[in-house]
């Protein structure tokens, strides 16, 4: 089988598998309850996968290492949660609010962060993230702080039908749909001249500048788009979990995006998904008998990736695969 056929067949097969997973799980004789459990787990995975994927646009394509990606995830979540709780917004209004706050935040922070040279970008994103965390924690009477707040968003009204957010099957479909369409948009974006210019900035910024590319503006655009998709993941998070807490703004959340992206393979979009899936699954398995071992394992894996396979799992597989074809 040639590589081209595989490139078409694998995604289609994967999509069919995921789309009909509830039915397939039923065929394997899983009870409704077990099916619901696995669907809920996958739903969370899709949300975090989208979060990691949005990070890849920044790190993998534009070459910007941020430690503040949780800012936009959190802005999406709190935009929805607080406007629902305090101003009585309807679900759609709240979602619009969440998205608007995220985009505005990304534009403001991006305008600052890309202007600071060198490693300043890393520091500014990390510091803004910390500021936001401190403020949410300080105003805990309004935001719920580290204890969190529960939001009640029972359903989304799509006109023709209602989507009940308490139903694991419907939540699964919503997040899967959002993930696939986001992947499509991001994949398309990376093929456009704009997306190619992001890669040029990553590969050789002085040359991009010499060729007349507005590198600052390109980084800014990548930052805002990446932040917007992270905010989208935040919207899904609050819809599915009906909960917001300050810990979601913690720098470890941003670090997770970095970890998943690097281990899965940065600059691939699908790699971060794979990384999220594998590590979440591993965390789940390990949490039963040795929860403390997980960070140690992640640290060792990350060190190996940095030293031996900087392309990550998918990138390395891809290289091996291409070599195999050429041989």
């Amino acid at each position, binding site marked *: 089988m040639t590589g081209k056929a595989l490139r078409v067949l694998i995604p289609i097969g994967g999509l069919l598998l995921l789309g009909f997973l509830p039915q397939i799980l039923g065929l394997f004789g899983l009870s409704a309850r077990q099916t619901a459990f696995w669907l809920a787990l996958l739903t969370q995975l899709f949300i975090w996968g989208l979060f990691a994927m949005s990070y890849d646009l920044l790190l993998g394509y534009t070459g910007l290492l941020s430690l503040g990606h949780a800012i936009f995830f959190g802005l999406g979540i709190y935009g929805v949660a607080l406007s629902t709780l305090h101003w009585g917004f309807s679900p759609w209004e709240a979602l619009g609010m969440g998205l608007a706050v995220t985009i505005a935040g990304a534009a403001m922070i991006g305008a600052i962060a890309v202007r*600071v040279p060198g490693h300043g970008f890393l520091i500014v994103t990390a510091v803004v993230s910390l500021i936001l965390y401190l403020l949410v924690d300080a105003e805990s009477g309004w935001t719920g702080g580290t204890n969190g707040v529960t939001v009640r968003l029972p359903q989304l009204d799509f006109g023709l039908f209602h989507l009940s957010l308490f139903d694991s099957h419907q939540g699964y479909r919503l997040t899967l749909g959002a993930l696939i369409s986001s992947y499509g948009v991001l994949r398309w974006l990376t093929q456009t001249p704009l997306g190619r210019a992001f890669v040029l900035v990553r590969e050789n910024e002085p040359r991009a500048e010499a060729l007349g590319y507005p590198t600052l503006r390109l980084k800014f655009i990548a930052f805002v788009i990446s932040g917007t998709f992270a905010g989208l993941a935040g919207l899904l998070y609050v819809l599915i979990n009906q909960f917001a807490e300050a810990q979601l703004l913690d720098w470890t959340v941003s670090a997770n995006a*970095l970890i998943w992206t690097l281990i899965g393979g940065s600059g691939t979009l699908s790699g971060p998904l794979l990384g999220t899936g594998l590590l979440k699954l591993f965390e789940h398995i390990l949490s039963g008998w040795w929860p403390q071992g997980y960070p140690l394992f992640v640290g060792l894996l990350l060190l190996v990736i940095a030293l031996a396979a900087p392309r990550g799992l998918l990138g390395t597989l891809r290289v091996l695969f291409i070599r195999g074809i050429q041989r």
Partner: protein
Amino acid sequence: MGFAALNGFVWGFIIALMALGLNLIYGILRIINMAHGALYMLGAVIAWSLVPFIGFWGALIVAPLLVGTFGAFIERTALRPVEGQPTLTIVATFALMLILQQAALMLFGSGQQQIADPIGRSFSLFGLSYPAYRLSVALLAVAAVAGLWLFLQRTRVGRWVRAVSSDRELAAGLGIPVPVVYGLAFGLGSYLAALAGVLVAPFTSVDYLMGFDVLIPAFIVVIVGGRGNLSGSLLVAIAMSEMENTLPFLAQPLWGQLLQPTVARALMLALLIVLLLLRPQGLFAKQTTG
């Protein structure tokens, strides 16, 4: 207020020790050392486990030496292969941070430990009673900074370090053993981080996560003070810590009430971002020693 000002001063020196180590490592190896907070934690945790055997002052000497040697070792083994690739070095040091934290958790447990105040007396200054130990921390930190300065300016190896910092290729061409300087710089940076960790141990709780709280301030100090500028780091560290500690009181007349410490911290951080925008190369970016 007076107490807070003194505290700010002492913490400023601690942050300065951290920032000097970070700055040294950045200046020589161009590595953003994410594991710096973990090395600080390691210093404190090792000191805590050594205190019953050799006492606090013994631990103050031994623990930083151990961590410094360990730092030189990890530079040689784990970081050498990725040096020169900024993203990968950040990832590698981040991985080291996770590993060190988790190792400390497994070996020493998750409890918050305390080391008894080794002096245990207070003295009064301007009508305030202040623990004598904390003031000796400031003095010891000054001594460490002065020692570092003398080492860099007055010794042959210190001159090597400065030479590698200003031009790596030229230094190598002149026969300076650049790899040795690399190991030395990382070891020295680790030593300073661990020293800071041991010094604060008697007045904070020692646990495997303690490195977080000082890592970000130390990074900010390095950037605002100017990369490669050691005296800039020192000044900014003290000014920043002083402001963070006294801001809740200074802002009282404007705010109407005592500012929450977290809000003061957030304000402080926001101010530093503004500074960074105005002076992206740092406040004192002219000289490039260290």
